[in-house]
């Protein structure tokens, strides 16, 4: 069939026309082979602009379209749709970027116009070789996987479950709740953290649509958006979840104690334990690593006293495979260990504690029942709270951990309220930009908190007291402040196992180690992999309101996809000519999306089109030339190059 090309040159206001002579380029385009119509217009992406294209397709029989305008990243979908609307396959369209690649980077009008001509010529030659391609649709599995049972995961799971669709909520620890359940009060309202979280936790426990897989980890993920297959390891609790009543007798009878993770090491727990009173599920778990039965073969006291006969030492890890359409990653954060910061004496000096340790101390359910005490059991008369420990510091983490200024002020309030002690907040910049945050700062000033602007250099122990050395940069003097207790507001760090999670899910991480979002402004919860979302602190430090908002945002996106029921797969994928394939498997290891597998029967590689993103790596690498990248064939690319050179 005769190929009839329509070329449309956009002025883009003065963005293009200001540097490129669009009339000249139009005239040039008219003279190219197979071009039946060449037009220029002020804004091709507008309705009248697109009507020009549609009209020519309908009336002039244009069956190949070139638009010379901005970057395909901007309007390729727009123009493709215009073609489809007029009845032309969207892949018979090509864009020449004469804005970002031409007018915006030139200072010479003549050179810019020549370049625009070359780009148009290239696009025309290429589009002549385009084939009509069909996007495919695949169904979307309505189940969702949420990894991580902190506030982010809980919120996302509840939002999705409310729609009636099923959610698998996988949590590594024995109970959901994350770090938020460890906190005492939340800023700026000073709501009790557990009081606002536990209703949500029990909702999760009761929801018929949420299958809570606690004490479990995701082992493997394969598949693609709408159709993921996930292998989950349900770690052995050595307690039968169905039988355990959560009575706590085993905890009482267990003779062995180890440091409690929940209490940040400030107290101990038994080897068989329920992590905290409001745990969901309210089921005991046996810590195999420290259990004397597993180490030496003795004890089994818990088993003896369990009335429900729920203890089972023969339990093994279980594996299950679930199929889901979308995955929401909500794995949370870890806290910096300040031991390497030698000058602050954490681990060396007594009464230097971290923020998480203080949260547990000040919590009524914590090791001191909420009393703020120094190591010798007395209440401190002066307390120093040091901001930015390990944050905003090129020696540790360059980023700001966002929440520490607010919780440091919260600590100031709690210390003042409970002990009446004099509190020093040692800060560099005060970050209090959320709703009600600045007002909270004012309240702290009213309460008499002493704010010293300076980053302390050392904490010494002198005559039995701690002394904080700091330059008061506003008063311009050196200060040595004797205190009884020092709280280090430590940085929020990516989870220490985030590399493993990133690998399993194919997630990228930014240079600070947190998971990378799809676009920092417009797609904060998406990732480069469709169907996988990141919410909460696993993407970067943030406070609870932002985390909850992100969780709901991801849930909305997931529900939108479930509601649509099916998704389009990009047609510009790679295809293997099995007759040419020699079975060398070079392509398989190169594919960044794990889209290629090997067929043992046919001894050739096969591409899973739904996973293929059309990156072209396999096509370039194939030694037999058996792989063709659709819409980016060698012939098409050669034609484009010729168009530029000739």
């Amino acid at each position: 069939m005769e190929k009839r090309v329509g070329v449309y040159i956009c002025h883009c206001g003065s963005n293009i026309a200001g540097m490129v002579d669009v009339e000249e380029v139009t005239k040039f385009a008219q003279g190219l082979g197979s071009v039946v119509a060449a037009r220029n217009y002020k804004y091709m992406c507008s309705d009248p602009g697109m009507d020009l294209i549609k009209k020519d397709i309908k009336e002039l029989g244009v069956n190949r379209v070139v638009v010379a305008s901005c970057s395909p990243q901007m309007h390729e979908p727009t123009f493709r749709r215009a073609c489809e609307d007029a009845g032309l396959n969207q892949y018979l369209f090509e864009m020449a970027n004469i804005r970002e690649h031409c007018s915006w980077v030139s200072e010479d009008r003549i050179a810019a116009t020549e370049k625009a001509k070359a780009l148009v010529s290239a696009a025309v030659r290429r589009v002549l070789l385009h084939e009509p391609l069909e996007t495919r649709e695949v169904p979307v599995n309505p189940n969702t996987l949420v990894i991580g049972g902190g506030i982010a995961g809980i919120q996302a799971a509840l939002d999705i479950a409310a729609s009636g669709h099923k959610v698998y909520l996988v949590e590594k620890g024995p109970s959901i709740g994350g770090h938020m359940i460890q906190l005492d009060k939340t800023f700026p309202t000073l709501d009790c953290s557990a009081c606002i979280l536990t209703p949500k936790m029990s909702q999760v426990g009761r929801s018929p649509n949420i299958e809570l897989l606690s004490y479990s980890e995701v082992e493997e993920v394969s598949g693609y958006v709408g159709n993921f297959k996930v292998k989950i390891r349900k770690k052995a609790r050595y307690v039968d979840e169905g039988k355990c009543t959560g009575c706590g007798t085993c905890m009482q009878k267990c003779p062995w104690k180890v440091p409690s993770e929940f209490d940040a090491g400030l107290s101990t727990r038994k080897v068989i334990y329920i992590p905290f009173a409001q745990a969901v599920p309210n089921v005991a778990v046996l810590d195999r690593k420290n259990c004397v039965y597993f180490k030496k073969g003795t004890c089994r006291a818990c088993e003896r006293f369990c009335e429900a006969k729920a203890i089972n030492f023969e339990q093994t890890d279980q594996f299950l495979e679930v199929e889901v359409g979308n995955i929401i990653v909500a794995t949370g954060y870890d806290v910096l260990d300040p031991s390497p910061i030698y000058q602050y004496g954490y681990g060396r000096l007594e009464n230097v504690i971290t923020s998480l340790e203080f949260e547990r101390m000040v919590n009524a359910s914590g090791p001191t029942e909420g009393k703020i005490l120094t190591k010798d059991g007395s209440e401190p008369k002066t307390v120093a709270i040091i901001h930015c420990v390990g944050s905003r510091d090129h020696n540790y983490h360059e980023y700001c951990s966002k929440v520490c200024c607010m919780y440091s002020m919260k600590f100031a309030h709690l210390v003042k309220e409970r002990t009446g002690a004099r509190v020093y907040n040692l800060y560099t910049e005060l970050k209090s930009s959320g709703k009600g945050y600045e007002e909270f700062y004012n309240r702290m000033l009213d309460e008499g908190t002493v704010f010293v602007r300076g980053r302390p250099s050392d904490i010494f122990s002198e005559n039995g007291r701690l002394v904080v050395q700091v330059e008061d940069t506003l008063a311009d003097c050196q200060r040595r402040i004797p205190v009884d207790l020092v709280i280090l507001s430590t940085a929020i760090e990516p989870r220490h196992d985030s590399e493993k999670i990133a690998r399993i899910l194919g997630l990228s991480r930014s240079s600070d180690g947190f998971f990378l979002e799809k676009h920092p402004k417009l797609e904060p919860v998406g990732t480069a992999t469709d169907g996988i979302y990141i919410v909460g602190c696993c993407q970067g430090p943030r406070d609870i309101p932002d985390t909850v908002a992100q969780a709901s945002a991801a849930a909305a996106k997931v529900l939108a996809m479930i509601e649509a029921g099916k998704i389009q797969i990009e047609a510009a994928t790679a295809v293997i000519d099995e007759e040419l394939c020699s079975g060398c498997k070079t392509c398989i290891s190169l594919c960044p999306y794990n889209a290629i597998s090997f067929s043992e029967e046919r001894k050739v590689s096969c591409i899973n089109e739904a996973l293929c993103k059309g990156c072209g790596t396999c096509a370039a690498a194939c030694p037999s030339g058996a792989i063709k990248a659709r819409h980016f064939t060698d012939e098409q690319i050669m034609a484009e190059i010729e168009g530029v050179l000739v």
Partner: protein
Amino acid sequence: MGTKVYFMIKTAEEAGQEGYEQVLKALEAIPEVESIEPASGDYDLVARVDVPKRVVPVANKILESGGVKRLEVIRVEPLEPNPFMEEVCSIPGGESVLWCAQCGMCSASCPNVAQMDYSPRKIIALIRAGNRNQVLGSNSMGVCASCYLCTVRCPREVKITELMHALECLATRHELTSAKTATPMMHRFFVDIIKRNGRAHEFGLMLRFYLRTNPFAAIKMLPMALKLLLHGRMPLRARRIKGTEQLKVIIHEAQIMGGAI
């Protein structure tokens, strides 16, 4: 696309008016030179140059004309008019002044901060305010022990100790050093001895230093000096290297080049 730099040129007195004119002619012949103006104070001429990439080839063209006693280069970034800030930024290591968050970690860590006119953090604040004489005339640089505690602890990787050295270089060059600290004088004697002999000479240094600053203090030092002498740890004669001429050439050329960029 180049950077703008200023060439501060001092012509050699021996070359006289002729030498001055030769330098002027050489400057005018260079296309990168945008403007030439007479200067007052330490320098005779200031030329604004649009340097393509590297400064030295352009500087060489001027030096080859002869008649230049000293050529100092000041790199100009588009900052608000703060020549002192630009002067500091143009010294290798000085540009780190731009990153300071004024957190005070350096000052609090400094073992000698109590004796300083201005703490290290304050020095940086003053540089940013453009207070050249205040900074260069302070004793802070002379009291700095170069222990680098500030540098390793700085959360923004500001090279504070290097900055102190650079500031003292500037203060010495422009004869603004503080009278409150004897350190610049000690450094001067140390350097004089090296220039002559190629090696340091502790006895020579201490002799000159105490005679010049405070002979009575020398008396306090005498017992210690004697002990060192008796233990064979204080050679009276200075050591000399063979390559003193080579060293002299190096120092002479460096002096003409002027400045470290």
